[in-house]
């Protein structure tokens, strides 16, 4: 938007909303919305507590493991689906189904299979993130221009060389886009897993603060989590842009 001829960056409206929040909070309309300033103050207090640091550690650990697994499984599976019709046929149904299925209903079942605590949360992160990574990797591989592959064949490249030097590199932007969306879904997964099954990490803190009506801390925690999700996706997006830059206008 432009104001007085100056271009105002889009994200600045968040500052405007924070101000609105502050005012609503000060008017004491509802106990759910404390003033933004006291939330921020609570946030600074929160990050110094041992339980927050612990929760962050646990959450990060399960998240990182789950994402690593999702990427390690998702990318090869997606690439295989893009390359081999039979793999695509066998897994296509499941990938398409789970990418938009209400996985939250499945979480209670996961516990039986994967135990209590972090393993289940780890699996939840994995399940939330993996499908979109598979789909995007598959799309990336299918979108490799056929002429690039023919070019490789023309100059005598082996199947393996074509795969590593052409297909994978060519699919890289889509693979990264999938990982970015996967990361966001993974954050949702870690929270849902922690809230729905094992009350550990952030799930425990959320439960604790909402039960004791400690809204400042509750919102502080929420904002930290939201910010983490946004920052994560911004980081990958930045990386993606660099790749896109080299990949040019495809």
């Amino acid at each position, binding site marked *: 938007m432009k104001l007085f001829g100056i271009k105002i960056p889009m994200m600045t*409206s968040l500052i405007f909303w924070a101000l609105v929040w502050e005012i609503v909070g000060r008017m004491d309309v509802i106990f759910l919305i404390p003033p933004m300033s006291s939330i921020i103050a609570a946030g600074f207090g929160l990050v110094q507590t041992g339980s927050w640091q612990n929760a962050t550690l646990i959450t990060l650990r399960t998240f990182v493991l789950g994402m690593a697994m999702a990427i390690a499984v998702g990318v090869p599976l997606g690439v295989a689906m893009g390359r081999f019709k039979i793999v695509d*046929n066998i897994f296509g149904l499941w990938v398409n189904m789970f990418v938009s299925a209400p996985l*939250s209903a499945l979480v209670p079942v996961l516990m*039986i299979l994967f135990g209590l605590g972090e393993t289940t949360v780890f699996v939840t992160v994995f399940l939330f993130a993996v499908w979109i990574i598979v789909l995007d990797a598959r799309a990336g591989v299918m979108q490799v221009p056929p002429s690039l592959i023919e070019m490789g064949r023309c100059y005598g490249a082996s199947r393996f060389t074509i795969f590593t030097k052409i297909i994978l590199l060519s699919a890289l932007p889509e693979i990264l886009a999938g990982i970015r969306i996967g990361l966001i879904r993974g954050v949702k997964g870690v929270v849902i897993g922690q809230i729905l099954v094992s009350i550990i990490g952030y799930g425990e803190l959320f439960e604790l603060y909402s039960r004791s009506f400690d809204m400042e801390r509750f919102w502080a925690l929420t904002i930290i989590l939201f910010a983490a999700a946004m920052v994560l996706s911004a980081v990958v997006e930045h990386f993606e842009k660099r790749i896109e830059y080299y990949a040019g206008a495809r």
Partner: protein
Amino acid sequence: MAASPQKVGATGGAGSGSSSIVETLADFARRRKSFWVAVSLAILFTAWEIAGRVPISFAFPTFLETLSALIEMALDGTLLPAYFITFQPLLLGVAVSAVLGIGLGIAMGLSDKAEWLLAPVFIVLQAAPMAALVPLVTFVYGIGLVAKTLAVIMLALPVIVLNSYKAVRHVNPSLVDMCRSFQGTRMQQIFKIVIPDATPVLFAGLRLGIAAGFIGVMLAELLITPTGIGDLITYHRSVANYAHMYAAVASIIAVSTLTLAALQYVELRFLRPEKRRK
């Protein structure tokens, strides 16, 4: 995506006359996607049955137990009322999100000011783990239909808004220029060009919104108060009827998948003439 294992069986059986079954099946596999649907379903169900029989755990029923639990629930009249209850907040929430979301999205697509004001909020909301906020709804709206509808809206609205917004922003600019060059008014531009051109993407956004709504209603029924399918899941878990619990979980996933597939079919069939024929 009409998964029809029966059909496969019928064709396989019919082909056993002159040519061999294997040949018929191989031919079928090449031609029909549903064959592969059946194959992968069969693989999963067999694996499930075996895992259940081992058993991995007392709390892990076999596939057949689950199936019979599902049939039992369908016949004794618990499943249908449960879906009736679950669908209330879902449909209400999706309807509200659709009207509100498409309206807001179009406004954001058409006006820079609305975009500046709202887009970041919805971008944040879409990326954010909203599940954390669902319990808060209870404080304000209690435990009834309103709270659950709100949970559905919380998950579905950002998706629908952002997709509608993108749909409008990606309207073919030369169509808009075309309308302007024929002196179309702003209203004509919006209703005769922008909205029709955005319709396929709007609908796709709606479909994603419904997917998010399913997630929302399950979260609401598991986190706010157990009703409908969420109640079947929690109740059967609390009394150790694990087969019934699994049946409820599987049925909601199946229902959502089929709903989404049906919507996608409608979308391709009626909204994308250029993709329909080829």
